[in-house]
Structure formats: C-alpha cells, structure tokens
C-alpha cells in the first residue's frame, strides 16, 4: 500500500513532502500537550506497536491476507498528534530499512497514511461520539466506522494525487472506481480489527484509550457490608 518512487511527478512529490513536513512540525509541538515529556518514549513505543501489528496478517478472502494500517486505531488509542508522529516514524523506518515506499515518495506516504488516514479516522470518531450516547458500544461503533472510512478516503486521496501528478494518462474515473472498490474491502478488515483491538484495550485499561476520555467517571468507593476491619464500631 506504500507509494514507490517514480509514481507521481516531481511537483506533486515535493508538494506532498512540504505538506507532510508541515504537519509533522505541528504534530511535534502538539504532541507535547498530549504527552508532555513522555512524548518520545510513548510515541516510540506506539510506533513499535504499529510496526509489530502490521506484521500480523489476517485472512481476508480466497487465500489473500491483509494487515492493519492502523492510522485510525492509533489516533483513537493515543490521540491524533501522537498518532501522526508514530505513523510518520513507522513509514520512515519502512522506507529506509525495508525499501517499502520510495524515499522520494516519503512525503506522499506520510500525507496519505499518516495524515489523511489519521485525520479522517479521528475526525469521524470525534464527530460520531459527540452525537451518540456516551457508551463503550458507541465508541467502538464510531471507531469501526472511522477506521472503515479512513482506508477508501486515503485511497481516493491517492487517486486525486495521481490525477494531479500521475505520470500516466488514464481515465481517472475508472481508477477511482477500482481503487475505491478494493479499499472498501480492505476498510472492512481495518474496521474489524480496530474494533477488536479497541474492545480488548477498553476491557483491560480503558484509561489508556485517548478517545475514551468522555467515558471516564470518578471511581466510586462504596462501603461493602461485613468487610469493616476488626475493632471498628459503627
């Protein structure tokens, strides 16, 4: 899913590179507000987590398999700015150490997978949780929808870039149709695994889910009858 070298022309690559650099610069500043001095270790471990999870392939259909992209999931878990940083670092490592995604296309990949996927995924989750009842189920549903939409929207953004700076003269409508079709399917997988992962984290450590802040309540300490220490009289 990473754009290799030579797919888009130079002006488009440079433009997306500038956009990505600007977004990362803002994210570097804003992530400090999400995590203050914990930014480096937490964003680094989140990146390691995304990297590890992307290595797990899950079966899709007819013998093919897919893996998580993780933009929406990461944004819901650690907050959008930290997610942008983590995704950027994952893409940088993949480009430099695995030749996955071209070095000259790094800006494009960060824009599509780090920025568009995170913004769409997190935006949808915030918009939906604002109108849905404040429950775990609606947060999971919103995250599923956000994750699902983030994939075809990123694919469409790629088609848009291809239309602006693609090196081939192809009917864009057909490309957009094919890309959207394939990525709607991939989006279903992304949504399923995002909901499964979030459900598991919410069950164990709901306080670790950034987007679940509105679900948090003050801990209620109730007196349980029959458990008073010895010697205490009412």
């Amino acid at each position, binding site marked *: 899913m990473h754009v290799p070298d030579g797919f888009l022309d130079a002006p488009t690559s440079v433009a997306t590179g500038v956009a990505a650099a600007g977004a990362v610069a803002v994210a570097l500043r804003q992530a400090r507000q999400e995590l203050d001095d914990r930014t480096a270790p937490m964003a680094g471990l989140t990146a390691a987590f995304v990297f*590890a999870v992307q290595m797990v392939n899950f079966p899709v259909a007819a013998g093919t398999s897919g893996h998580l992209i993780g933009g929406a999931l990461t944004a819901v878990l650690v907050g959008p700015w930290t997610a942008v940083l983590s995704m950027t670092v994952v893409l940088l490592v993949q480009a430099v150490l695995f030749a996955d995604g071209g070095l000259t296309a790094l800006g494009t990949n960060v824009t599509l997978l780090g920025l568009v996927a995170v913004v769409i995924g997190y935006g949808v989750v915030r918009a939906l949780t604002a109108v849905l009842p404040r429950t775990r189920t609606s947060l999971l549903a919103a995250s599923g929808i956000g994750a699902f939409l983030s994939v075809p929207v990123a694919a469409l953004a790629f088609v848009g870039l291809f239309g602006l700076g693609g090196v081939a003269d192809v009917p864009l409508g057909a490309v957009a149709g094919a890309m959207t079709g394939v990525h709607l399917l991939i989006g279903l997988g992304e949504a399923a695994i995002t909901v499964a992962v979030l459900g598991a984290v919410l069950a164990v450590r709901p306080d670790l889910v950034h987007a679940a802040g509105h679900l948090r309540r003050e801990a209620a300490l109730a007196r349980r009858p029959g458990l008073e220490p010895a010697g205490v009289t009412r």
Partner: protein
Amino acid sequence: MAAGPAGALSARYIAGSSPVHRLAPQAKLVAVLAFALVVVATPVHAPWAPAVYTADLLLVLGVAAVAGVAPGRLARGLVVEIPFVAFAVLLPFVARGPRVEVLGLSLSENGLATGGGILAKATIAVLAATVLAATTEPRELLHGLERLRLPQLLVQILMFMIRYADVVGGELQRMRVARESRGFRGRHLGALRVLGPAAGALFVRSYERGERVHLAMLSRGYDGRLPQGPRRAVPATQWPTALSLPASAAAVLGAGFLLG
C-alpha cells in the same frame, strides 16, 4: 511473521566490512536519496529512457557487488513492490491514446511506456534502498538521520521505536507460539476474535512498558534530551565516494538528454 531470531529491524542488515559498509551513514542516505531523485527524474516517454534505466540498474548492481549483497537478498527486497506491479501491468490496458497490437492484445502506447517506466524506476530505487539497509545497521542509520538535522524529538521517537521494535515483536512472537501451541489456526475470518484481543493485549503491554521505561529514565536524570557520545568525524573522501553513485546516474541522464 517475517522476523527471525535476530530481530525484525536488523534482519535486513548483513554484517561486513566492504567499502560500502564503511561509508558514513549520512553520506549513504544522501547518496541513495539523490540517486532515487535522478532515477525518478528520467522522462518515461524519451526513446532513450530504457538505456538510462539499464545503466542505472547496472550502477546499483555494481554497488551491490562491491558491498557483497547477494542476488537472492536483492530479489527478496523486491517483494515489497508486488502490489504496484499489478497497477503498472494494468496501465497499458486502461490508458488512453494511440494503441498498438502486441501478441494480439490492443495496448496503449502511452500506458506501455509509463507502466514500464514506473516498474523500472521503482525497481531501481528499491534495489538501492535494499543495498542501503543491507550495509547499514539501524542504529547507524539513526545517527545518520540525526546528523542530517532531523528534528531532535523525531530522532528520539525513532530511537525508541528502533530499540523496542524487536522487544514488542518478540512479545508478539511469544503470543503467537502460545496461541498455536493451544491449537489455534488463523485460517478464516473468525480468527479476528482471537487476533484482535491479542493485539489489544500487545498495546497494553507496550504502553505499560513505555511508562516504566520513562519512569526509569526520569529517575536516572532524563531531562528530555539524550546524552550524545562524541561525534565520529567523517573522512573527507567519504562524501565524494558515496556521491559518485548519484553523480554517475546524473551523468548518464545528462548524456541521454544531450545525445537523445
């Protein structure tokens, strides 16, 4: 899982002492990036483009031979290209413009040139990046990026990621062994009911480890910056040596423009 016992990130590195291994990481990074830029700048519709691609390919293979990177390793590096090969192969069928008959198929001339160009450029660039990864340790690459003035916070995030990718990957591997020794076979969509919570548990463990690491670092005087060791001076000859790769590619491209 592709990761071997040596770890996911260092799996691509082949220890060695070739001249390519000994180059400073920042010089190699700049050289590979500049080389990729030159390759990408080759116009796909020029009649001499295939000759330039061939020359670029020979240049990369030459560097790989000097570095002692085996052909098998290079071929495995190309696996990442597969999804885009499919896209490039489709181009001659869907692109507009004048069409030619090839083996009874009506193909677009434009699509053939661009599809071939995309494949050639991506392949050459992937080979160059594969040689870079095979001759440079992840930690060295990090130092290189730092010397190239990547923002300090980003360098630190990268450093934590590189240090912990193997730890988190190892955790994942142990969870997989535990699952499979209990009879788990992830062959259908129902596997998500198992893999999702496993990934969730992995996140919780990673995050908690991050918190412990941070506290341990604070108690040892971490103030948001990492102490850096003495910087290794780069011998003056290294930059010209490293940049000879993109310079040769640029010379070939220039020759194409002049003679073509």
